[in-house]
């Protein structure tokens, strides 16, 4: 009797174990450091929004793949006129939004009219400023007319900022997102998690996962514990200092990839003494890039000498423009009229790479006589003071937008760099379609801003994901902001 009972118990346990494994095999729980303020990617700049919804809940006409290439999305194909000004998109048929309404050309027109409207709250409105007109040819065809050729147009309409929304639901997307993607929004437990569920009638290939939870864990130590305890199955970009714990653990895989984040010592070019070229050059010479990469990113960052991603085909290695040379830095400071150096403030947002880089740079600058006062700030005051009001001397921040060298052509941008030559070159670059000429122009731009030492160019952020070893299909690189669930699956 006792034997039978234990066998029964054992098989019950076995059953339980199997059903747990089966349940786990189509669900995923992803740790996310920041909770999004809302869930509408077309109405907010926060990366945390795209992390949850991009290509999962919402889709655009085009789709950016893991390597940054443009793929068909809701548009199955497109033709471009010879002058590069007219794009005609054929839309996929039988696509429905998660509330059951159908997706048609009118929705595309609605989406872009909404982005370009006077009162638009789109965070990247400027990216779409070349669009002169969107017209509906028939329910399955839509035509865009541009005011000038725009090489990045197909890429930009694939970003989270230009995902297609429906007029019926757009106003509620912040709390109840309705898109066309493979996953539908299920619930949002504020302060805890967002849960997505596979959308049955999805038009494209069905993903392997049926359910995905994004669990908000702000603290690195807590995230480490959650991973080790199996409370979450992975996180897309984890603190580099904690990676050794997982690298040596066979239950985990560590994915090291690239991001579009140029991390810079942003300098207020409009404010003395930083308006003097010699001062900026002196600071460039005082920066020991290798030490910063090692200290702030544990060697995962890639040194940069200008504002350009090293994995981009137009990249030019300019890290040697102003090599680490404290002696030369002191000379330049003396030439600029600061033989004894000067004092400045360095405002740091609440991210590990900035806080660590800040302490290292303060120590390096002290050796050439520049005395930095470190001011640690939270995101909201940082955005207000530094980004909006330009009330800063120096700050450290990663610019994560892809191909964003154009910010140097905007004299009103927060670092206040006004160079007509750069502005002219950038305009020409935007209007040029010839690949070889574009590369030439982009490299010329990189060289000028490197020589002008506009900002202290530090490193390209790496993406270091930690995932359960039995998962596959996660994006290694981050060409755009987002954690795309489409290809993720459990393998035994």
């Amino acid at each position: 009797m006792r034997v039978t009972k234990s066998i029964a118990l054992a098989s019950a346990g076995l059953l339980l174990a199997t059903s747990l494994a089966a349940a786990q095999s189509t669900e995923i729980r992803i740790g996310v450091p920041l909770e999004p303020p809302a869930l509408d990617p077309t109405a907010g700049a926060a990366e945390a929004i795209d992390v949850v919804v991009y290509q999962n809940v919402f889709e655009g006409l085009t789709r950016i793949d893991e390597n940054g290439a443009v793929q068909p999305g809701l548009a199955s194909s497109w033709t471009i006129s010879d002058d590069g000004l007219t794009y005609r998109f054929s839309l996929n048929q039988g696509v429905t939004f998660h509330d059951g309404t159908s997706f048609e050309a009118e929705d595309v027109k609605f989406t872009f009219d909404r982005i370009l409207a006077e009162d638009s709250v789109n965070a990247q409105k400027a990216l779409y400023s070349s669009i002169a007109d969107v017209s509906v040819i028939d329910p399955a065809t839509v035509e865009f007319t541009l005011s000038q050729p725009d090489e990045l147009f197909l890429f930009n309409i694939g970003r989270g900022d230009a995902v297609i929304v429906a007029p019926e639901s757009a106003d509620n997307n912040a709390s109840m997102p309705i898109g066309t993607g493979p996953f539908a929004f299920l619930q949002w437990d504020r302060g805890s998690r967002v849960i997505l569920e596979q959308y049955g009638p999805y038009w494209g290939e069905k993903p392997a996962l049926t359910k995905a939870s994004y669990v908000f864990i702000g603290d690195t130590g807590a995230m480490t514990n959650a991973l080790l305890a199996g409370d979450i199955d992975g996180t897309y970009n984890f603190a580099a200092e904690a990676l050794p714990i997982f690298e040596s653990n066979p239950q985990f895989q560590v994915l090291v990839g690239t991001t579009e984040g140029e991390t810079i010592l942003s300098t207020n070019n409009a404010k003395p003494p930083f308006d003097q070229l010699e001062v900026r050059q002196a600071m460039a010479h005082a920066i020991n890039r290798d030490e910063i990469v090692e200290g702030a990113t544990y060697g995962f960052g890639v040194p940069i000498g200008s504002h350009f991603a090293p994995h981009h085909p137009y990249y030019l290695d300019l890290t040697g423009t102003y090599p680490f040379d404290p002696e030369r830095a002191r000379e330049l400071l003396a030439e600029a009229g600061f033989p004894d150096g000067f004092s400045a403030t360095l405002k740091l947002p609440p991210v590990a790479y900035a806080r660590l880089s800040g302490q290292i740079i303060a120590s390096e600058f002290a050796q050439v006589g520049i005395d930095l006062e470190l001011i640690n700030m939270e995101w909201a005051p940082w955005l207000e003071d530094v980004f909006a009001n330009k009330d800063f001397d120096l700050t450290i921040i990663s610019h994560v937008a892809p191909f964003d060298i154009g910010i140097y052509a905007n004299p009103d941008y927060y670092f206040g760099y006004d160079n007509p030559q750069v502005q002219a070159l950038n305009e020409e670059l935007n209007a040029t379609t010839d690949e070889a000429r574009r590369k030439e122009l982009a490299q010329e731009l990189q060289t000028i801003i490197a020589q002008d030492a506009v900002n202290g160019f530090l490193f390209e952020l790496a993406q270091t994901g930690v995932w359960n070893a039995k998962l596959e299909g996660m994006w290694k690189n981050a060409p755009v902001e987002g954690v795309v669930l489409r290809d993720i699956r459990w393998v035994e």
Partner: protein
Amino acid sequence: MSSRRILAHPGLVVGLTATAGFALLALVSLFWTPYPIGEVSIARRFALPSAEHWLGTDQLGRDMLSLVMSGTLTSFTVGSMAVVIGVGIGVPLGLAAAIYGGLVEWLVLRFSDLTFAFPAVVIAILIATLMGPGASNAIIAIGIFNVPVFAQVARGGTLTVSTLDFVGAARLAGLSRIGIAWRHLLPNIMSLIIVQGTIQLSLGILAEAGLSYIGLGTQPPETSLGLMLRDAQSLFLIHPSLSLVPGLAIVIIVIALNIAGDGLRDVLDPRLRSRRRADAAR
């Protein structure tokens, strides 16, 4: 208090010596540390204890001993300033409650109840959130919690002493209530306040570490023991020594202060010793 009585109490000797040792380290850091606090050297980070770096180095290659010295100074400063606030406001309140009674006493007691109803750290978080993080706000937050503690100690002590004959004699001699409080009551409750002071100092150091750990206390580039713990947290599994060094420093300081406080109580006020034995027996 004779030196013989101190030496006869081994706990007090150990406690005072350890406390004085840390206090000395902290004070020395004002003038000298083995390495400058801000000196970063990535090449020598995570070094284990060695002849050059007695306690090793942290994630930025800074000397741990220098950081502990400077961090201890912050901890002691915050803890003792909070005690000063508590004594400065709490003792007069307690004295007033005891000698005036009535409404004054009721107000002081209800204020104490109100403050005690919230755990100290919750009050501290509230204050730090309202006024922004920083060492000075941590002092105020911890100091506010100290006020009712000292008020109650002062009131209790005063009530006991007031019943003694010499106080009655002073009153008969025509001394005013404030005069009695100053000349006769305060000196007689001083030992109680000193003992409570050491205990509140250790609690204050713990509270400062807690506040800094959750990011509401001391802000970098200044350092404190709690801040060091916070920085080391994400590295705990890889480089445990970064957490152990400041953690152990806090533990040793707090234990030393508590032993010293116990010893002081025994030595300064023998009557309390018997009361404590009675407490223990209960």
